[in-house]
């Protein structure tokens, strides 16, 4: 892929012979330096997430990914991790279309670059809207944690949507955890719910129904920061696509700008691979 870099050279000419020892252009070297610093930022975030999780107060449990993220749009019932798996798949595929675009650029195939870049942008937009769905669902919540008057914790079987009234006849709560077998039902349970000390519905910056407050804070910050990267990646891709269509790179004689945008895009995919593992799986 990088013709210049694969040329055999003797070590003596690399520094002293007027050649860069890296055999890459200034722009490409700089995008790599940027990516390293960005990678350090994301590593810092994920490591601090691990730190918070590892130093947890004894007795406090960290939420389990497949219980929190178990909904699929348009499908009733539990689909643990399926939607986030689809998001991951979309991002990987958009990374593939990007690298195919870079490859087409190396052959000076303008039509190919346009096609693949366009598909990459579509993938990116798809990912962004999926993340919007995920956030909406996360903020709204699905079980609402209730602290009962006697100090026990209960979870609603179904969190009412905003503006919906609860029907006491079909009302149900599980005691202890969302997965417990201890279920209270009907008007009696509804009375317990009305006398509750505190109800946490969904997630915000101070509390959430899933677990410790830090959980939602890390979720918002890490996936939000990544989502912002995806967003700027889509913008960059749109700008580069416009330049490709205007024939700027054809005239310049090389499509290195596509390659640089591609490096950024792959990096975004790379970060998601780690976010996916440490936030949803582990």
């Amino acid at each position, binding site marked *: *892929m990088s013709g210049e870099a694969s040329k055999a050279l003797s070590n003596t000419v690399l520094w002293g012979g007027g050649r860069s020892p890296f055999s890459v252009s200034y722009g490409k070297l700089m995008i790599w330096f940027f990516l390293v610093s960005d990678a350090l930022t994301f590593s810092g975030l994920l490591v601090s997430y691990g730190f918070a999780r590892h*130093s947890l*107060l*004894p007795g406090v449990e960290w939420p389990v990914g497949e219980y929190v993220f178990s909904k699929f749009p348009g499908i009733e019932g539990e689909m*643990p991790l399926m939607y986030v798996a689809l998001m991951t798949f979309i991002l*990987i595929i958009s990374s593939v279309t990007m*690298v195919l675009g870079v490859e087409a650029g190396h052959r000076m195939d303008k039509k190919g670059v346009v096609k693949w870049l366009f598909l990459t942008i579509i993938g990116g937009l798809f990912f962004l809207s999926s993340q919007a769905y995920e956030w909406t669902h996360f903020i709204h919540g699905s079980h609402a944690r209730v602290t009962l008057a006697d100090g026990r914790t209960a979870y609603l079987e179904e969190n009412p949507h905003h503006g919906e009234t609860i029907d006491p006849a079909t009302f149900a709560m599980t005691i202890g955890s969302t997965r417990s077998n201890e279920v209270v039902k009907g008007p009696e349970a509804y009375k317990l719910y009305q006398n509750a000390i505190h109800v946490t519905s969904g997630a915000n910056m101070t509390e959430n129904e899933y677990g410790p407050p830090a959980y939602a804070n890390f979720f918002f910050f890490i996936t939000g920061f990544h989502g912002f990267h995806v967003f700027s990646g889509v913008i960059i891709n749109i700008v580069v696509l416009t330049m490709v269509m205007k024939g700027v790179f054809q005239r310049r*004689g090389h499509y290195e700008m596509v390659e640089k945008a591609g490096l950024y895009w792959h990096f975004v995919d790379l970060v998601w691979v780690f976010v996916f*593992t440490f936030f949803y799986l582990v």
Partner: protein
Amino acid sequence: MERDDIIEYSLGAGHSEEQGRAIRKKIYFVTVLLTAITTFEVLLGVFWRSWMPNSWHWVKWTFIVMTVVKATYIVMTFMHLGDERRNIRSFILIPYALFLLYLIFIAIWESQYIHWALQTFL
């Protein structure tokens, strides 16, 4: 004044039709591999409780190893760092790896201490 001592590396990055075919083949191979690994990860995440209920430790390490494998393929093939000169590869990976390994080590070490302190003195 036009300088003639600067080598235009960007122009040297092109490749022929035939090389392109080989590169595309490699890209498709990595695509299939990444998809397969992700599918396996999700299935493992959903079903490990019924497959092997007492081995969370192993499942967790499987996830981490697979993630590193995926990351390696993305960096080496998609970002084609594997095809660059060794100088730039080391220049990017070694400082990052050194810093990150230390960060992970110190975070695990200190968080264990804090957990222990909370457990003992709270």
